[in-house]
């Protein structure tokens, strides 16, 4: 992915996929229902934040087509696996932590590469990367509360 359009589309899809993941987890694990639903809602907010930043700041004067020149590999960040039916709650939390870690890496890299764009866009990526860090901390705390697996 080298263009702003491709990166924003990828991010929007990633947020959509993760929202669905958390809805699924909320259905299957009542003990984590509240946190999973709040994350799912947060994914929608992230998507709105990104799209607003992009559509309101996009301009032909700044390097929209060239700012991600180093390229972002979608394969490295896509949510391609799903939790299996047999997974226990602790494994589901580990799965979510891993997915959030990958998403955090994507947003950090996107923020770094887009520093040449209008400031709203890298700022939006940074905000979401920080939120991802907060989520990972919450999920880890929940996992630790379960005791050793």
């Amino acid at each position: 992915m080298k263009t702003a359009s491709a990166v924003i589309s990828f991010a929007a899809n990633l947020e959509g996929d993760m929202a669905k993941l958390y809805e699924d987890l909320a259905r299957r694990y009542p003990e984590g229902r509240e946190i999973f639903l709040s994350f799912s809602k947060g994914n929608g907010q992230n998507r709105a934040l990104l799209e607003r930043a992009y559509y309101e700041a996009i301009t032909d004067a700044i390097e929209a087509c060239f700012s991600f020149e180093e390229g972002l590999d979608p394969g490295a960040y896509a949510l391609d696996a799903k939790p299996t039916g047999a997974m226990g709650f602790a494994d589901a939390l580990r799965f979510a932590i891993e997915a959030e870690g990958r998403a955090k890496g994507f947003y950090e890299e996107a923020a770094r590469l887009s520093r040449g764009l209008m400031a709203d866009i890298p700022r939006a990526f940074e905000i979401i990367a920080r939120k991802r860090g907060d989520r990972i901390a919450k999920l880890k705390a929940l996992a630790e509360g379960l005791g050793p697996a």
Partner: protein
Amino acid sequence: MILEEPIKEVITIKNYIDGEWVASEGELMDVVNPATQEVIAKVPISTKEEVEAAIDAARRAFPIWRSTPPLSRVRCLFRMKEIMEDRFEELSRIQTMEHGKTIDESRGETRRGIENVEVATGIPSLMMGYNLEDVASGVDEYLIRQPLGVFGIVGPFNFPFMVPLWFAPYAVATGNCVVIKPSSEDPISQMKIAEIAEEAGIPPGVWNVVNGGRAVVSGMLDHPDVAGICFVGSTPVGRDIYRRCGETGKRVIAQCGAKNFILVMPDADLDRTIAACMTSFFGNAGQRCLAGANLVPVGEGLSEREYEAFHGKVVRAMAESAARIAVGYGLDDSVQMGPLRDKGKKERVAGYIGKGVEEGAKLVLDGRDVRLIGDWPHDAFLNPTVFEGVSPDMAIGREEIFGPVACIMRARSFDEAMEMIHGNPFGNSASIFTSSGKWAREFQYGVRCGNVGINVGLPAPMAFFPFSGMKDSFFGTLHAQGSEAIRFFTESKVVIQRWF
């Protein structure tokens, strides 16, 4: 991912005159998607009588529109903005289909167009005059700004959505009426904007669109009821419009051709500079009046050997980055550069590349070797081209190519680079890349160009600043956009009063 095309069947474009969609009696021409070569619309080449009908409608609408309170007038613009936001993606994709630019570029154009509507909604404040009490004993004096009547707007092919919006929102908000002639090469965006104006409640006759060519422009220029003309296009046509407007006493803004220089000082951040140059030289496939044309690594303070190393580094970085640019259909959002607007324009640019080789410039990257993302007809496509060893007297270094061609020149000193810029007849824009405040300040102070970039390769003024231009790049006094546009569309009337 290739985004869905919003145009599903061939559109037959009509004129929008006096609030009605009217079929033209003129011949219909094909509007072709330059990437796919599919016909997407039929546009009429309207007659002189048809443009006269539009001017007459505008003239008749003017008295009521000018007496409509400014607040009511701009409420129509607020509604236009809202509708444009709702249809943002559709409007952007249409630009890609009719012009060829990438979807990122089209969205950027839509945003900049909307920004002009937004600025014009400030007219109740921006149009205010001023006053002074007691200029003599018991005598007050004040200035009021009044609209002039009917304005003609002639749009270019390279920004089919945005450029008419540099003018029309300000004209209409200040109480004038407009007749817009879009480029016949990509007229769909202006048809959509007229639909939006209609939906937003702009009264019949205030906003008119007449499609066509020279007959329409001549009809505007010759008509005594047209108070002024706004034009964006080539220098020969702009110069002619300026002359004819002078003869008939019309106001004129004519923003014209360009040959823009970019200086790279030895202390520049080269990575950021080259990234900015990709947008500047190759964005919009080089078809814009602010596009970089001549890149000049400047050897100020360097020995001969150091300069050769610096120059070589810039040439290699430009060529390597340009070679990596993904070229294809602009609705594929992995694409970084789209096609030229049409086959004829491609041939013209390819002709310049051939001429550059004949003149002795070194072809570092040949864009005539077309490599695309996706299986599209090559008719209008070129890849980026990079020349080095270009001198200011070569045709490729002197004339506007209007395509994705970068010409790299040599200047051993800052002064020599400035002489190169000033030796060129155009004065649209120029940029410098440097970490030195001193060089940036010297450049800003001395360069005779309207739009200046400091570590910005494409110094496109925002809607609240004028889009400037000097020398052969501009004919007129006041420029497009912002407060200068408001001055252009209004007459200053000064009143002195006393009461007995």
